[in-house]
Structure formats: structure tokens, C-alpha cells
């Protein structure tokens, strides 16, 4: 019967779907972190219960329609009542409702237990990272005891593998949502609130995350990367980020630095060491060490950097960076200079 075949078709592709969605960057079912793994286990438990219930209901429904179907038209059949059958059916319905309540309790307890498990991850002195949401990029600050030791970077978060990390979320403008599906669920960045999210990456790797709360024109291009690496590599990275890059040595880079200081770049961006202090845009002190530019939109290479500087509006229309028409040699010198900022 038509209905039967299409029903099996859906079940087939439902199963297929689960396989397809399993691995792949930024997928909730490809957990690389402690919490994401617990959530994934809870997901598979509840998913299996739900699919089982769905199949039972559809089975009951399919047989009900097949069993009582008639070809006659509506007028010919008088409305009939079968009190005896109704009484038996009441028992069946009561059992079905009872089973539903039991299944719901199972899911409730599993969910609450998982909720507690992922919430009470903590440690004495975790790596504390402030993630501050801006309109359409992420400001990342590593707190440190001395003020000059704090690291300010953007759109890229390095975390030591196997150690809990606490991320303090806040926003300077609208509501954003910090979400790296491979590691943990999402947490909103709300102006006026300071939320704390505990993360722990179990396997090294690069995990992409994206803003999950609609925040304006470029909500679609507001991604970030969490790079999980062993502790010593993480400390090396941190040390390098804290260091102030050496002033440019060769002639072209010096000219590039002058272009940076004399043109529009200095109004919005900061490069520690050359006296610039703009706050509107991300900190570019170690731009060359970052994998992507424009909040994960473009891989960080010379061609993309040139295109982004000259006309960022064609890549992320509506973002705060205006088009900057530079003379070709100025642009070339600037790119040279930016590439020295390891």
C-alpha cells in the first residue's frame, strides 16, 4: 500500500541521516570535548527512545487505517457505536499513556543527570578567557595576574588539551551566542550579564564554532576557531602572544608601518609596540599568526588580506570596516609589514 512503502522510505533515510551527520567539523555529534561527549550520549539515548515511540505510533496508525478502511462513500455507512470495543480500548489507551509517562521520566532523569555532570566541571586555577562579543567578531582576552601579561587576540582561542578552561562571556552591543559544537553546547553573550562556560577539549585539533543568536547583518560570517593543543605548545603560543613584535627591519616593512600609522588603519586597530591604540577593530599585534581573518570568513593569506583591506564591504557587506583605497605600493608595503607581525 502506498502509505506503507513511503513509511519505510522515511525510516531508511532517517537512519542514513544519522550516519551522514556524524562526523564533520562543527557537528554536534562529533564530540571532541568532555561535555560534548556526555551530551552526545544523552542525545543517542533520547533519540533511540523517540524513534522507537515514533515507529510504534506509526505502526499502530498504519494498521488502524488498513484494518478499518472501507471503499463505501460516507453517506451509506450509518454512525455506529460499539460500547464493548470501547471499554477494551480504554485499557489499551491507559497502558499507552502509562508507558508514555514512564518513558518521559526516564528521559527527564537522564537529562537532569547529564545537566549536572556537564555543569560541575571545575578546577583550582583554570585558564580564564574573556570572550567579548562585538558586531560580527569575537574579542578574546587571556587574563593574567600582571596587567601587561594579558593577551588580547580575536576570533581564535587556544586551549590546553585535557584541562578545564573557563570562558567568561559578555557582549558590548547585541546578544551573540558562543557555540563550538564539538566541545560544548552554546551560551549566550548578553550585554549587562557575565556568563561563565566551562570547556574541556579531550583531543587536540581545530574546532570551528559560529555565533548562534541572530545579531544583525553579518551574523552569518561570525565564526571562530578553538585550537586545542598540548600544554607546552599552548604555553609557547601564549608567550608568543604576550611578546611585543620586534620593530620591522627591512625597508619595505618600515614603509608599511608608516602606511599603517598614517592611514585609516590606526583609527580602529591596535598593534602593540608601534603606538597605535584603536579600539573599534580587532587587535592586530599577532595577525600573521592567526589562521583566518574577518572572523573565520577568509583564510589568512596575502591575497585575501589585500582584498579585505581594499574592499571589505564586498566580502562582509555591512561590517564596520570601510573600503580603504590605497595606492598600490602603499598596499604592498602594508602587507609586507602585516606579515612581520607573527
Amino acid at each position, binding site marked *: 500500500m502506498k502509505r506503507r512503502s513511503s513509511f519505510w522510505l522515511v525510516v531508511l533515510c532517517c537512519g542514513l541521516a544519522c550516519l551522514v551527520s556524524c562526523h564533520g567539523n562543527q557537528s554536534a555529534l562529533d564530540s571532541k570535548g568532555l561535555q560534548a561527549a556526555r551530551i552526545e550520549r544523552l542525545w543517542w539515548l533520547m533519540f533511540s527512545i523517540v524513534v522507537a515511540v515514533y515507529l510504534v505510533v506509526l505502526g499502530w496508525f498504519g494498521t488502524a487505517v488498513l484494518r478499518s478502511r472501507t471503499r463505501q462513500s460516507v453517506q451509506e455507512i450509518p454512525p455506529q457505536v460499539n460500547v464493548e470495543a470501547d471499554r477494551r480500548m480504554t485499557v489499551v489507551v491507559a497502558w499507552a499513556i502509562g508507558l508514555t509517562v514512564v518513558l518521559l521520566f526516564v528521559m527527564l532523569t537522564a537529562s537532569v543527570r547529564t545537566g549536572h555532570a556537564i555543569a560541575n566541571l571545575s578546577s583550582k586555577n583554570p585558564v580564564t578567557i574573556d570572550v567579548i562579543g562585538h558586531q560580527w567578531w569575537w574579542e578574546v582576552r587571556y587574563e593574567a595576574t600582571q596587567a601587561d601579561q594579558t593577551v588580547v587576540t580575536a576570533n581564535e582561542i587556544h586551549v590546553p588539551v585535557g584541562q578545564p578552561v573557563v570562558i567568561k562571556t559578555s557582549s558590548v*552591543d547585541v546578544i551573540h551566542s558562543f557555540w563550538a559544537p564539538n566541545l560544548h553546547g552554546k551560551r549566550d553573550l548578553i*550585554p549587562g550579564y557575565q556568563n561563565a562556560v566551562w570547556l574541556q577539549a579531550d583531543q587536540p585539533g581545530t574546532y570551528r564554532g559560529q555565533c548562534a543568536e541572530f545579531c544583525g*547583518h553579518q551574523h552569518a560570517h561570525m565564526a571562530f576557531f578553538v585550537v586545542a593543543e598540548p600544554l607546552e605548545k599552548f604555553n609557547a603560543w601564549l608567550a608568543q602572544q604576550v611578546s611585543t613584535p620586534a620593530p620591522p627591519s627591512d625597508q619595505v616593512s618600515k614603509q608599511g608601518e608608516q602606511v599603517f600609522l*598614517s*592611514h*585609516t588603519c*590606526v*583609527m*580602529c586597530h591596535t598593534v602593540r609596540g608601534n603606538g597605535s591604540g*584603536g*579600539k*573599534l577593530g580587532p587587535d592586530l599585534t599577532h595577525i600573521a599568526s592567526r589562521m583566518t581573518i574577518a572572523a573565520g570568513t577568509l583564510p589568512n593569506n596575502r591575497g585575501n588580506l589585500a582584498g579585505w583591506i581594499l*574592499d571589505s*564591504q*564586498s566580502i562582509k*557587506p*555591512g561590517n*564596520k570596516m*570601510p*573600503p*580603504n*583605497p*590605497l*595606492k598600490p605600493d602603499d598596499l604592498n608595503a602594508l602587507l609586507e609589514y602585516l606579515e612581520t607581525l607573527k
Partner: protein
Amino acid sequence: MSKRRHIVVLAALLLAGCAREQRNFREATPSNETGEGVQMSDIAPGHSAERKPNANPYEDSAYSVSQGKQLYEMYNCVGCHAHGGGGIGPPLLDAKWIYGSEPQNIYETIVEGRPNGMPSFRGKIPESQLWEIVAYVRAMSGQLPKDVSPGREDHMYAKRPEASTPKEHPPQTNVPPGQKEK
């Protein structure tokens, strides 16, 4: 006859609506070098240099004026002019304008800079942002229509927002600085 007039009024209203809501992201920047030289007199070699348009295209778009407001704070104009009340720099809320209150005058003040501390921003701020800041500066004294001026901002309530400030009436002075008004 009155029906046609209603339609015309309605169309004008709708058009005003369109302009107010225009989000212009990509500005074709006229020239490589941002900002022109100072216009000392009308006599100029070769063809007469066409002067900057007096009307600022951004004054109809609420989006551009609100961008100008964010730039006003981010580029630290607040440092000297505060939220328009003035401090080191002169107040921008009132009707007294030293260098003229037309968009063109304000544009030149920002590009060329002025004595007593106003730095020149030529080359530092791109053309489109310059005009957005100019539009916002005029909104601070209520020159722009109420539905275009920005409303309350999500910060401390320093002053009534531009949408609620009464319109100031600066005297019409196109006289270059130093000369007495006629």
C-alpha cells in the same frame, strides 16, 4: 483633484520612508586621495574646481546617522567634545558655530583640522565615514528630521537623544573665519 493630491503626498511619504531606511554599505570612493585641499577662494587655475556638494547624502538615512554616532564615540571625538556639551573642544549642541554649520563647513573642519587642538583627520577617516560623522554632528543640534535622528542609546543616559533635542537655528554664516558678519 484632491484624490490625486493625496496620492502624491502618500508617494512622497513613502519615498521619505525609503530614504530613511537606506542601508548603504559600499560607497564608491571618488578619488584615491581622501579629502581635498583647503578652498581659499573661488579663483582657481584651469576649470573651476567643483565644490563639494553642500547637501550631505547621508542626512536622510537613519542608518548612516547612527553609524556616524558610533564612529563619533569610537574615534574619540567624545574626548574633547563630550556628548556634544563641549569640554576642551567647543560644544556642538548649541547654535553657535565658529566655522559654519553647513555639511560642507563641518566636513572641512574635520578634514583640515582647526587651531587650538582640532587635529586634521585627512587620510585617517575614509570619505563615507567622514560624511556619516558630519551628518551625526548636525543631528546633535537637531538639524535633521526627528525620524532620522538616533534615539536613546544603550549606554548611560548622558543627555536627551538627538531625536528629542529641539532644532537649533544657527545664524547663516558662510563668511570665512576672521571676517565680521555683514
